[in-house]
């Protein structure tokens, strides 16, 4: 009898053990390991030659132009992607929201398609479309009598080109989240607004926007955190260039991962702190929202 009760108390721990082991191994421990690495000059070939150097990696980081360029690029990328995506996603959601027709269902599936395709394919296709000499985007610009662009191959337009691809890749997903939010607004509220002869713009501004604000906020945070981690498009489409114009934080980490592992780790810690702050803000605001409801 005693044996069974002991087993009863133990059982839930056994059930969560595999999950906890995996999280310990691949999430918790690596964070501390990363912190330790950031204080070392690490020698990949001969571990014994690694040397503790205190805060030197961080000092190096904050005195390096390249780091600030990467940080700056990441900020520009994040702000632009988030703003463009939210505005376009909202417009798309409003466009689809009007009626439940077959065409709208098809449209939903259509705008969502890029999101489930590998970024590798997306990046390669857009590189072809953006080819400066025979690419179809320049052809379209020419047809409309507009000046053509060098897209990814000029440092003045490369970042904008990467941003364009990211927005295209993800906007459908966010549009569908916002669409679900729009459809959960009770129709009675709109009927009341119509009785009051409220204008379309006013209804949108005073009713729709506040009603979907929790989802808008969610989308904002998820997108901001995701954008800070941008890497794939940059690696495939530009390799950080031309002239470091598209180098981002994660790309910076990636570039230094074998030559200067300690330095890359220190950059990783900085990125993690930024993401932790964003997540904290998210939960803070979310907790307040739930509280006031």
């Amino acid at each position, binding site marked *: 009898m005693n044996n069974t009760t002991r087993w009863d108390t133990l059982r839930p721990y056994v059930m969560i053990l595999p999950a906890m082991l995996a999280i310990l191994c691949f999430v918790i421990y*690596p964070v501390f390991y990363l912190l330790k690495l950031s204080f070392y000059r690490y020698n990949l070939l001969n571990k014994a030659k690694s040397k503790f150097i205190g805060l030197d990696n961080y000092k190096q980081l904050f005195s390096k132009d390249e780091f600030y360029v990467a940080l700056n690029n990441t900020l520009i990328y994040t702000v632009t992607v988030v703003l463009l995506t939210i505005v376009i996603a909202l417009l798309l959601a409003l466009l689809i929201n009007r009626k439940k027709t077959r065409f709208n269902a098809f449209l939903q599936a259509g705008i969502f398609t890029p999101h489930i395709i*590998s970024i590798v394919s997306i990046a390669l296709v857009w590189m072809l*479309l953006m080819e400066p000499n025979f690419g179809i985007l320049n052809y379209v610009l020419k047809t409309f009598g507009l000046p053509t662009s060098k897209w990814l191959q000029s440092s003045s337009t490369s970042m904008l080109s990467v941003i364009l691809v990211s927005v295209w890749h993800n906007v459908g997903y966010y549009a569908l989240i916002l669409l679900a939010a729009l459809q959960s607004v009770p129709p009675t509220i709109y009927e009341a607004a119509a009785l009051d002869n409220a204008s379309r713009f006013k209804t949108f501004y005073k009713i729709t926007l506040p009603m979907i604000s929790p989802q808008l906020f969610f989308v904002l945070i998820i997108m901001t955190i995701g954008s800070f981690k941008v890497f794939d498009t940059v690696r495939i489409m530009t390799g950080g260039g031309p002239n470091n114009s598209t180098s981002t934080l994660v790309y910076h980490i990636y570039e230094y991962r074998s030559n200067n592992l300690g330095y890359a780790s220190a950059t990783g810690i900085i990125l993690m702190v930024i993401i932790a702050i964003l997540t904290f803000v998210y939960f803070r605001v979310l907790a307040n929202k739930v509280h006031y409801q």
Partner: protein
Amino acid sequence: MNSKWRYGVTGISVALKSVVLLIFLFPFVWMITTSLKTFPETMIFPPKLLPALPQWSNFVTAMQSGPFLTYTKNSIIVTLSIIVIQMLVMIPAAYAFAKYKFRGQHFFFALVLLAFMIPGQVTFIPIYLMLADWGLVHTLWPQILPFAANAFGIFLLRQYFMQVPSEIIESARLDNANEFTIMRKIMVPMSIPALATIGLFSFVSHWNDYFWPLVMTDSTGVRPLTIGIAMLRETEGISNWHIIMAGNVVLVVPILLVYLFCSKQIVKAFVYSGIK
């Protein structure tokens, strides 16, 4: 007057929607038609949509330019292994979190939520060193093991399990069913939609993954399809777009097929993960 205005609005909205659809689907059409062109046809300006004669041999060239059989096999093994391992790890954990009360429960669940937030783009450095120490770098394990615990999955499945009435579980226990049987015969069958959602999600994200295999693999023998396709630019030359697009089609088709058959579930899965 009013009805005329209405027709106008409908017309504009249909036109607008068609343009939107074109913007989102045209790149895929272009990918497919380019994959069937000859090299000179890819360089014509103004560009032409269709090739004079479909060049099916582009696919052969693309697949022979590297060990694509190995890449494909690796992609399949990695993706399927991740899904199976995740299910085995996730189901008992979610069951314990949903239906048991035990000391430290909140602490352990907080760890799961924490795992959500730590980005792999940062922890890949120590994880790589760790797996190198374990001597696993030249196997497929570095692409599988780190994903054993699916935090989002545990979270979602726990919600589902909590909705299963405890009376059903109690009466099964009275019938001398053990906990394993309860999971297999009650919890899992009652949560098929959630499990399907999580499985689809894992399939799409790991089949498509580029970053993780890029930083975890050093040798061709363990690389997946995404890396192989991205490398086509190096092996086939930057301007051989017809070959690169052929490889691209091979990478995209399995996902598009799955999407064609269950676009509703996939859209639901992704949107649900966003709303909770």
